[in-house]
């Protein structure tokens, strides 16, 4: 069971493991990212970043979709992490149902404009987020569960 779907370009880090972990008590974190999944060193780094109570699966986007839809994680409380909106779009295209996405961390890079403290967007991000909105996804932005949800939907159209 996916209890949180989150966009965070830092993937597994303290905010997720400690900040969300203590609120949601996840048994697993699923990272859906082609680049990380094909890099053994990076995969091990992310796996080492979780606490001992949380198992970590690092999968390419297609593999994540297949395992989630096959019910591999149905018995667990799982957090699904992706680096950006493009991965969410691919998961939707494959047929995964996603109603709400937590926009947790899209950090500053050249060419990106600040929207919120934890959200910087360029045109490509806006386009991808807009597409998510079109498909009925609610975009709630906040870094941590104790913060107020900011609904981004009207800000990206």
């Amino acid at each position, binding site marked *: 069971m996916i209890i949180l779907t989150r966009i965070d*370009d*830092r993937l*597994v*880090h*303290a905010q997720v*493991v400690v900040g969300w972990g203590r609120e949601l008590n996840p048994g697993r974190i699923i990272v859906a990212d082609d680049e990380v999944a094909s890099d053994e*060193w990076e995969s091990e*780094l*992310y796996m*080492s*970043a*979780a*606490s001992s109570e949380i198992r970590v699966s690092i999968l390419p986007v297609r593999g994540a979709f297949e395992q989630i839809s096959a019910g591999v994680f149905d018995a667990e409380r799982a957090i699904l992490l992706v680096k950006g909106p493009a991965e969410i779009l691919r998961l939707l295209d494959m047929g995964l149902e996603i109603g709400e996405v937590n926009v947790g961390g899209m*950090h*500053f*890079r050249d060419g990106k404009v600040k929207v919120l403290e934890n959200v910087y967007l360029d045109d490509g991000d806006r386009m991808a987020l807009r597409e998510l909105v079109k498909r009925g996804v609610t975009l709630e932005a906040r870094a941590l569960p104790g913060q107020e949800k900011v609904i981004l939907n009207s800000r990206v159209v």
Partner: protein
Amino acid sequence: MKENDAIGIIVTHGNLAQELLNTVESIVGKVDFCQAISNADLNDEALIERVRKIIDEHSDAYSILFVDYFGGSCSMNCSRAVKGYDRAVVISGINLPILLDFVTKRGTMGPEEIIDHLIQRGQESVRVIDP
């Protein structure tokens, strides 16, 4: 610089790195071989680049990176930053005793030896005080 010399790069969340360095300096005086970096204003790539630049500028010395939290983004990005460097290492879970010993004992022992010493010092200083 002498062969045994090491520089310190403190990398943390928020203002912790700068405040740790300020506190060290309030105890031992000005320290010119340590730098403090916060992850607050830097994205991952920029942080890695900043750290590597410091390591490269001090290629005659050993670089010890001090990070606050194992598994946090600072420790992740510092791990990436030292990948491929023979004379750079990351120590996570830092505390004031570790930094004070680094600053005061640096140069009295070789890099490998001081790293072992700092880890031991840090661990020994975490204890229950129950008078």
